[in-house]
């Protein structure tokens, strides 16, 4: 049946229904007229006759109702009537309706927004064909380069990947890709265009074929592109193509320079495709790993079979189960490691123990998922609480109105309205309200999702998450609104069905026990308890965020500029690098306003860490001794590095101009390093080296100790770290060590300490171009901002919870105010009598206050253990705050109590102006 047909049918049905109604009305009228006429003829007065006729027939409303029942189809009919009546009721009290809709819109909107994010981030599959067939190797998302043995086998080398690809026929396609996305300078070849940073990811040739996506223009990568020596090709993302090149078809086939390497853009990926991982700032370019070989030359990762730098995702053939396939892969991996890694007996045991698993990868290899998964759960719980509080509020408003309408309800019951009908009526009204609130909530959700994305991904250029609610999110919102409507109108509906026709008529509003009925008080208790939970949660998260952000990091963030640079090191001989680095620091220091400048492999909160095994003179064996222990971090820095980032020197000396490639090789360690590896000895003057070869244990002399500084994770104590000067190199036998050393001398990070809050970016770019015309600044950000971005997820959760806590406070206050004001209004006559009998005004005020605040006090008492439980559940997210932090509980309790007192005292004071005479006359 088409929509038009359905509408026509519906119209026809409505018309027939209308005819029948008129028909019935006419039939009954004819009956009554006839009956009255007969009685008049028998001698009754016209008025008496009419009354008698009505009496004999009974309630015409009820008769009609029963006739309708005999027609069938009545539920539709009733629904229509109920809806019409509900709309009329809502129109009659616009203030109530507006308050209820706004409350529900906030609650439902918040929930829909969070669910939208959950759906997009946690539940949505990758935009590729048949994503459920995709499986990834391992789930150890350790970035970025590792050597062979991992507790959960995840990273592979190019050689191992090729072996697996060619010998695992259970996969129709098995692709590999870099575990991270890097920034590169990128510009059109030949043109004088300034280089622009582009994010690139190296992938295997069958990457796009594995995902089963089609190009938007040109072609995607093929196996031939990934053979060593193939002309470097690149696939551009649709977004990059659209935003930077205005979808210029001539981009396809054009040659570009990627850090000086000529590459040809062969095609454009389909719109919406963001690669293998849902992440902020996804790749602009996908390049075959063969291009990595040409780009990095000697330092290439693909060249070395022991450099494990690729993730593996494959498409299982239909009917294949992941477990046996994983076992097959495990056999191959172990054989390869035994054969190529020359393991010791202990390492052999570790290789045998190593976990090799396949994980479903329909949603990609999750990054946002890992970062935001738990946080989104917290937010869902928090917005659920807000909705519950909103529900309690609306239920209370409905109850107050239902009580006010008791007389009307009683009259309806007296006229023959069935109980079921009354319940249905109230439910219909509630659900209608909730649906209206849900519709308004959609607007709230649209705004809220955008706000949350902006908060969550502060500093990100592009977030591949559509903020508009998807179909599941809309369905979720609709179902939630329906459920909400039923929940908050259940109590009023039940109460309405218990109205006795005679009772309110008799009582005439003068009974004293009718203060706020039990259900209303109970709802206040619930609201107070839930609000306390929310406020305490907000307080804990706020405090935790404050302590995270304002802790002593071990560096100074004020007036510092951090640059991410690409120095296009075509020629990376140590001699050239030394000259370049020296010239660069000298030139940067000359910029007015720059107090000091330094270079480093990486700086704090850059998202980079290099950990490796080391050996220390006097300590036998490698460090760490066990594989499950964290290896110390290593950084390579220029002179003045510590003063530039603001890390204090505790003992000895810092790395300075004396430390050249030719001079005595030195190292500076942090406190944790000193404590951990030299527990009872003075580290100064001792020696250490990189790698596990004991012959290198005397390579670097420890000359200084600096304070601990957090580089990666602000929640845990600083890791043991050693700093060695740039370009103070060693001669190694193992290719992996040589490769690593070469790569570690390439500076990607410049730090500037400024004399004040100055903007020196233009001068810095200018200075950089002067030293190296091909160099480009890939990113520049103040140290303050960089660190702040590290707390995006915490900030999102803390700020939203604060907002929700505030809303809860407002809702609870409004609810209490409404109930108290209503109670006072209901009891005007009773209070009039009390005053007339000589009650002191203050006693009356106290009586009202007591009545209003008693449920709040009870709610708070119940809320304290509930908030403790909530705090305990949050404990893993808290930093430096105990879940039972007394002052947070105190502040939350005081805030709620204060708001409740303010909300109750206004209507309570109103009793003092009640004039007993007028109050008694009013009824």
């Amino acid at each position, binding site marked *: 049946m088409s929509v038009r047909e359905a509408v026509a049918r519906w119209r026809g049905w409505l018309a027939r229904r209308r005819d029948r109604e008129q*028909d*019935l009305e*006419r*039939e*009954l009228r*004819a*009956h009554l*007229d*006839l*009956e009255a006429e007969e009685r008049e003829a028998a001698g009754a007065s016209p008025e008496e006759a009419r009354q*008698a006729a009505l*009496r*004999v*027939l*009974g*309630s015409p409303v*009820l*008769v009609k109702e*029963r*006739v309708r*029942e*005999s*027609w*069938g189809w009545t539920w539709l009919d009733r629904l229509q009537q109920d809806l019409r009546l509900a709309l009329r009721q809502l129109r009659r009290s616009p203030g109530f309706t507006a308050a209820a809709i706004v409350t529900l819109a906030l609650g439902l909107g918040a929930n829909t927004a969070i669910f939208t994010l959950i759906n997009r981030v946690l539940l949505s599959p990758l935009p590729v064909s048949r994503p459920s067939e995709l499986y990834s190797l391992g789930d150890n998302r350790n970035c970025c380069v590792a050597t062979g043995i991992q507790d959960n086998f995840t990273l592979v080398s190019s050689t191992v990947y090729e072996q697996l690809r060619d010998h695992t026929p259970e996969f129709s396609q098995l692709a590999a890709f870099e575990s991270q996305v890097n920034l590169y300078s990128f510009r059109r070849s030949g043109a004088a265009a300034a280089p622009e940073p582009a994010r690139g990811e190296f992938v295997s040739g069958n990457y796009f074929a594995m995902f089963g996506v089609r190009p938007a223009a040109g072609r995607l990568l093929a196996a031939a592109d990934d053979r060593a020596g193939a002309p470097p090709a690149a696939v551009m993302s649709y977004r990059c193509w659209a935003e930077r090149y205005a979808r210029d078809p001539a981009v396809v086939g054009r040659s570009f320079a990627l850090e000086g390497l000529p590459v040809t853009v062969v095609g454009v990926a389909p719109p919406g495709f963001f690669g293998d991982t849902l992440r902020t700032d996804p790749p602009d370019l996908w390049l075959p790993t063969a291009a990595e070989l040409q780009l990095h030359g000697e330092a290439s990762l693909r060249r070395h079979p022991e450099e494990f730098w690729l993730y593996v995702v494959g498409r299982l053939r239909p009917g294949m189960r992941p477990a046996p396939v994983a076992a097959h892969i495990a056999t191959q991996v172990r054989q390869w490691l035994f054969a190529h890694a020359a393991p010791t007996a202990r390492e052999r045991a570790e290789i045998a123990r190593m976990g090799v698993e396949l994980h479903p990868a329909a949603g990609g290899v999750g990054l946002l998922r890992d970062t935001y998964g738990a946080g989104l759960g917290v937010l869902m719980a928090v917005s659920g609480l807000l909705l519950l509080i909103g529900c309690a509020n609306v239920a209370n408003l409905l109850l107050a109105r239902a009580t006010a309408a008791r007389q009307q309800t009683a009259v309806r*019951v*007296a*006229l*023959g309205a069935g109980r079921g009908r009354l319940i249905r009526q109230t439910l219909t009204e509630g659900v209608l309200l909730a649906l209206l609130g849900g519709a308004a909530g959609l607007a709230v959700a649209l705004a809220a999702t955008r706000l949350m994305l902006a908060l969550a991904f502060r500093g990100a250029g592009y977030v591949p998450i559509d903020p508009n609610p998807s179909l599941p999110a809309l369905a979720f919102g609709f179902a939630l609104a329906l459920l909400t409507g039923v929940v908050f109108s259940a109590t009023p509906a039940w109460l309405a069905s218990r109205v006795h*026709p005679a009772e309110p008529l008799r009582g005439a509003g003068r009974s004293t026990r009718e203060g706020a009925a039990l259900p209303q008080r109970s709802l206040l208790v619930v609201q107070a308890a839930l609000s306390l939970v929310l406020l305490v949660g907000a307080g804990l998260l706020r405090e935790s965020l404050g302590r995270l952000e304002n802790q002593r990091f071990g560096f100074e963030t004020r007036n510092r500029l951090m640059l991410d640079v690409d120095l296009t090191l075509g020629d990376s001989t140590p001699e050239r690098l030394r000259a370049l680095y020296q010239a660069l620091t000298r030139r940067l220091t000359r910029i007015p306003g720059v107090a000091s400048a330094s270079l480093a492999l990486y700086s704090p909160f850059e998202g980079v860490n290099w950990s490796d095994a080391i050996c220390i003179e006097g300590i036998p064996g490698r460090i760490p001794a066990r594989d499950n222990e964290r290896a110390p971090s290593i950084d390579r820095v220029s002179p003045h590095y510590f003063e530039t980032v603001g890390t204090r020197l505790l003992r000895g000396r810092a790395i300075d101009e004396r430390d050249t490639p030719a001079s005595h090789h030195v190292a500076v360690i942090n406190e944790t390093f000193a404590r951990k590896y030299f527990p009872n000895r003075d580290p100064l003057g001792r020696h250490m080296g990189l790698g596990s070869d004991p012959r290198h244990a005397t390579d670097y002399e420890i000359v200084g100790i600096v304070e601990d500084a957090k580089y990666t994770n602000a929640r845990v104590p600083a890791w043991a770290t050693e700093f060695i000067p740039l370009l103070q190199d060693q001669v190694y036998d193992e290719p992996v060590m040589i490769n690593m050393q070469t790569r570690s001398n390439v500076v990607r990070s410049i730090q500037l300490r400024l004399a004040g809050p100055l903007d020196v970016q233009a001068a810095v770019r200018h200075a950089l171009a002067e030293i190296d015309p091909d160099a480009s600044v890939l990113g520049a950000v103040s140290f303050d901002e960089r660190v702040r971005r590290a707390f995006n997820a915490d900030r999102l959760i803390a700020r939203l919870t604060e907002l929700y806590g505030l809303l809860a406070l407002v809702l609870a206050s409004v609810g209490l105010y409404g109930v108290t004001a209503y109670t006072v209004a209901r009891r005007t006559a009773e209070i009039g009598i009390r005053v007339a009998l000589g009650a002191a005004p203050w006693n009356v005020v106290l009586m009202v206050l007591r009545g209003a605040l008693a449920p709040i006090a009870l709610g708070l008492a119940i809320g304290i253990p509930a908030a403790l439980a909530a705090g305990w559940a949050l404990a893993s997210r808290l930093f430096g705050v105990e879940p039972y932090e007394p002052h947070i509980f105190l502040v939350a309790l005081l805030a709620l109590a204060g708001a409740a007192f303010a909300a109750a005292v206004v209507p309570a004071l109103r009793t003092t102006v009640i004039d007993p005479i007028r109050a008694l006359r009013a009824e």
Partner: protein
Amino acid sequence: MAKPPASSSSSPDRLELLQGTLDMLILRTLVFGPAHGHQVAAHIQRTSAEVLQVEHGSLYPALHRLERKGWIAASWETAKDRNRQFKYYRLTAAGRRQLVAEESKWQQLAAAIARVMGTAS
């Protein structure tokens, strides 16, 4: 419940109709020709010598129920004695068959009850 009594003066010599018999009585009444609701009620009352009391409130739902079942049909016609239209109900063929079935069922029932009551007294 708030269902008001059908008649304000239910005297002891008037009997309320047995459940389910109203349909049969309506069908029976219509055997004599088309009638509107008021006439049906009056006819039943009159022919039962004012013993059977038809609740007007139940009459119309019953008429509409029978119409829906197809045992009676309705049309608006002008009354002969008044210049006014009434909704007249008439028996259909299906209605006639139903009446026969109900009558025989009723007679069996009445006879059975009479036998029981006869032995008891």
